[in-house]
């Protein structure tokens, strides 16, 4: 299995706090990997390191063999890693269609000169990609609605749609099930599995253990910034450190 994303001995320090402490792991092509851990374990920080939002203090992150730590988030995104956010970051005052188009524009790149010719081949590609992504997340009929008017659950799908419009190879989802009820979570699980079956590599941070256990092929567990487990769900469930890390944390 070739590693698509390699995280090599990566640390991130915030003042005196080691938010991520020497984590080494990898995501293979076509995998569906879950990242779990108690509150404050460094999951979101690790995601921010991967997407380039937070610079690494030490260590290196490689994507398809090339170093990506130190690159701008917009560059990393255009290489094929797109992500969603724990607290939604859709564009509330833009239509659903425009929201998704921003993803397409971001991925295709926005040269100021090309940008002005809206009738161009490029513009057509942006619109095609946007419709395709909207179809995948089943929001086509809301295309002209303002994102702010969508229900919370729908906005989650919109954010995933925006990420899909970038045609990523690796989709990174930060707590996609946060704020969803059980049936919505089940629906989301089925949707993520479907995306994965379509050939997408997915990495997901999640609090909802049920979701992670049911759909992920491999689970990485963080606690206090360190990796304490990296195995199949069945194995992780029985690892002593994991059980200890979760003791007293209501999940």
């Amino acid at each position, binding site marked *: 299995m070739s590693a698509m994303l390699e995280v090599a001995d990566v640390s991130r320090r915030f003042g005196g706090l080691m938010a991520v402490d020497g984590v080494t792991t990898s995501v293979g092509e076509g995998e569906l990997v879950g990242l779990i851990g108690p509150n404050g374990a460094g999951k979101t920080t690790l995601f921010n390191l991967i997407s380039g*939002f937070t610079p690494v203090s030490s260590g290196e992150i490689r994507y398809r063999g090339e170093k990506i730590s130190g690159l701008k988030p*917009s560059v990393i995104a255009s290489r094929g890693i*797109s992500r969603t956010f724990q607290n939604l970051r859709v564009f509330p005052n833009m239509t659903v269609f425009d929201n998704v188009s*921003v993803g397409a524009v971001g*991925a295709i790149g926005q040269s*100021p000169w090309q940008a002005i010719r*809206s009738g161009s081949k490029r513009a057509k590609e942006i619109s095609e990609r946007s419709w395709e992504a909207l179809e995948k997340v089943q929001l086509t009929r809301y295309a002209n609605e303002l994102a*702010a008017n969508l229900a919370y659950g729908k906005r989650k799908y919109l954010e995933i749609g925006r990420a899909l419009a970038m045609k990523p190879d690796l989709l990174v989802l930060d707590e996609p099930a946060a704020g969803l009820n059980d049936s919505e979570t089940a629906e989301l699980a089925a949707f993520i599995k479907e995306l994965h079956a379509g050939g997408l590599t997915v990495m997901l941070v999640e609090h909802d253990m049920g979701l992670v256990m049911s759909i992920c092929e491999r689970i990485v567990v963080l606690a206090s910034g360190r990796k304490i487990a990296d195995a199949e769900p069945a194995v992780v469930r029985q690892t002593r450190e994991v059980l200890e890390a979760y003791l007293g944390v209501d999940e």
Partner: protein
Amino acid sequence: MIDPYYLQQLTIGISLGMVYALMAIGFTLIFGVLNVVNFAHGEVYTIGAFAGIMAIAAFGPPFLVIVFIVLAVGALAGFGLERLAFRPFRRFSDEASLKSRAMREATLMSSLAMSIIAREAMELLFGSEFQTIDISYLINKPIELGPVTIVNGDIIIFVVSVLMLGGLQWLLKYSSIGLSIRAVSNNPLGAKYVGINTDRTIVLTFVIGSMMGALAGILVGLYYGAVFPSMGFIPGVKAFVAMVMGGLSSIPGAVIAALVLGVAESMSTTFVSSVWADMVAYLFLIVTLVFFPQGLFGARRERV
């Protein structure tokens, strides 16, 4: 029958309002993407006017060429301004820093500093008095429309402003630059993560806003025949009022507020002396802040 005098004042008011609108858009666009007020915007207006009259003095180009020269100088001014007064304070790119108070206050001071430097530099170079302008370039030739007399400047300002505003709307709605600008205004971090180059988008916003500000400067300079280093201050304040009335980051709001302001000002000269007409803007500002703290058109906007 309405007294032709009022129609005349109305035309002047609309011209004034259009100019305020062009300027207010600069404020509004920049406020949208960065949540900061660019206090050097009035100087961009002055620089536009000076660029125009210098071009006239140097080689007397046709009007349209002047417009393009002014737009180019405005673009350059916006670019330089962002580089010198705004970018150095954007060292951290997370959302909290991008829209933080520290960032707002730092750029408030730095843009104010830039405005003072630009104004003083122009006074040193050109003197603080009115500059001489070739009379044939002034856009105050009377045109008689029945009982009403307007000047060709009214028509020119109206046409040029409508073209600029229309062009801007098109750009924002249909081009990918516009899409990026709207995305960054809505959520800078979200935009960044989906691959939008936020720094470039911010520069482009300054460039576009400053082009409009510079154009407003030369139009007014040629309309009144008055170009001087501190000419940008009062229109800057008026445009600021229009932005606040319009709800800070709503472009249609700012345009409507600017027109209301322009017309109210020119109409008020009927009742009070023109010296007091400036007070109208401040009165509007106070009323807006007291009764509509969200602006007249900004109530529904979700602020980050």
